[in-house]
């Protein structure tokens, strides 16, 4: 910390506050709209506070739509994708850093390449693939899709992280008679916890917010995830804006909570893994 003088801090605090207002204003508006009655949503001039604020939109949202079910589906898919992504990425990153140290960068290039394909082109082939495998309307299809999108960044981040764990630790474990797998599981993974947490958070967010794949790969309403449920609320003839905003907030809250709790791991991981490569 360089010279934390009070006047300087005060100035910085003002600038931060201004930036915060700009960044958070849309959320404030979401909350505001979700609490208003439908007539007031488009009142002109727009109202920033309303005497008629109520949780009515939330109540009717939960009453008319199976939000709890959508929430559960989102949770299952996101957690599933996170588990798959974390395990596969950890395995790959460990393998690369320990066995192919010079091969790591070309592999990362390959990973980046896989991210370059525009999503739109993937829609029809993915559908056909899942349909042929009989995986339509299943959690598995979505978990596979989301894991594949999260893997490039996850592997990249974990490569950096594993590289910072000295090889001597592996060797010490081997001296003690551990097999490669045991070394990996019992010794290295616990050390890599911040990196794994970061990867988990990142994958969870990606899976939680994704829409296109759930749109195309699920037709049964009982399998819809939150993002599909929210999109279906935007009719052309009528949009219940307060309910829509309420739903969007319900969808955003778990992610915010998760990130608040685990945020420092994210920073640690980036610090250790990404900064020095």
């Amino acid at each position, binding site marked *: *910390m*360089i010279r934390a003088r009070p006047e300087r*801090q005060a100035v910085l605090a003002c*600038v*931060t506050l201004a*930036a*915060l207002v700009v*960044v*958070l*204003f*849309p959320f404030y*508006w979401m909350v505001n709209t979700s609490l208003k009655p439908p007539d007031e949503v488009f009142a002109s001039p*727009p109202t920033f506070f309303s005497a008629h604020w109520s949780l009515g939109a939330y109540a009717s949202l939960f009453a008319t739509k199976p939000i709890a079910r959508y929430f559960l589906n989102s949770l299952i898919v996101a957690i599933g994708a996170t588990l798959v992504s974390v395990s596969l990425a950890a*395995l*790959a990153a460990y*393998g*690369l850093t*320990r*066995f*192919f*140290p*010079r091969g790591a*960068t070309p592999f990362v290039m*390959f990973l*980046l*390449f*896989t*991210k*370059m*394909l*525009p*999503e*739109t*082109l*993937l829609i*029809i*082939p*993915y559908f056909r693939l899942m349909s042929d495998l009989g995986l339509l309307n299943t959690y598995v299809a979505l978990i596979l899709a989301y*894991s594949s999108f999260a*893997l*490039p960044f996850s*592997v990249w981040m974990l490569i950096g992280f594993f*590289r910072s764990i000295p090889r001597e630790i592996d*060797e010490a474990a081997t001296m003690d008679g551990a097999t*490669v797998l045991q070394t990996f599981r019992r010794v290295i993974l616990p050390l890599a916890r911040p990196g794994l947490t970061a990867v988990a958070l990142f994958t969870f*967010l990606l899976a939680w917010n994704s829409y296109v794949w759930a749109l195309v790969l699920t037709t049964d309403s009982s399998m819809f995830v939150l*993002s599909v449920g929210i999109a279906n609320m935007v009719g052309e003839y009528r949009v219940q*804006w307060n309910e829509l905003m309420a739903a969007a907030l319900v*969808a*955003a809250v778990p992610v*915010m909570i998760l*990130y608040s709790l685990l945020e*420092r791991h*994210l*920073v640690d991981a*980036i610090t250790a893994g*990404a*900064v*020095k*490569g």
Partner: protein
Amino acid sequence: MDDATVAVGGFRGKRRKPRSAAAFGRRWYGYAFVAPVALFLCAVVVVPLAHAFWTSLYRVRGLNTTFVGLGNYVRVLSDDAFWHSLGVSLVFTGCSVALHMLLGLALALLLHALAFARTPLRILFLTPWMVAPAVGATIWLWLLEPQFGVVNYLLRAAHVVSAPVAWLGEPGTALAAVVAVDVWRGVPFVMLLMLAGLQTIPAEQYEAAAIDGASAWQRFRYVTLPNLRYLIVVASTLDIINTIRHYDIIGVMTAGGPAGGTEVLPVLLYNTAFRANHFGEAAAIGVALLVLVLAFSVVYVKLTRLDRQPSA
């Protein structure tokens, strides 16, 4: 480059021996570890890529296909819409990424200098990134609405403008608006990366610079930036690749309008595939986009010497 075949369990007799891998002579372990991801991604990448290449060689009208070889590429590359879209993409990506990096770094410096409430502030500044891009875009769509939007209301109340501005109604302002929304969404992540980087810069370097009489700007230029160089390069690479592929914000806010003013390549691709129903041409555009991004990455990596590992 050792050419020794590893004696112990050298199943495949590889050409090279890993450096300190004496105890890990069994290379196949390495393959086993990497195989799941490699196979998975191959399936996920190779299958759709093959499908895309294949489709781009056909004139597709739903279930009726006719082989046209490179005909689609000729059509796409001779159509003004493609080149216009490429231009818009470059402008959009360039502005967005530049602003992401500048504002992300600025915010990180700001938060780094603050002595209080760091974690809550970090979470708060991360929130735009946590909301799905489509949801964020929908909210901004209504904030920018000419008659009922809050932005115009505030601007008029503050007497900055006298009449409602049609933000998304004209090509110039529409492009600025979608860039602004993309910046809102994308800055948090860069800020996080930069903040993490700032925290690893040893205080001694700053102290040494201060002792040498360096000004704040000089400290920034000669201490902060070099330390963050790798991170900046990596972050901007990922950002460029992501932004050039980005569809959601523009798709929701303007669908490429007005008059094609915000029609970036992913939007053109989507419109060609699902509005015009020309899947063959869409695949050709997609392949062109892919080649473009690939070419850029190779050049960028060479320029920034990303492929050379910094000493760990």
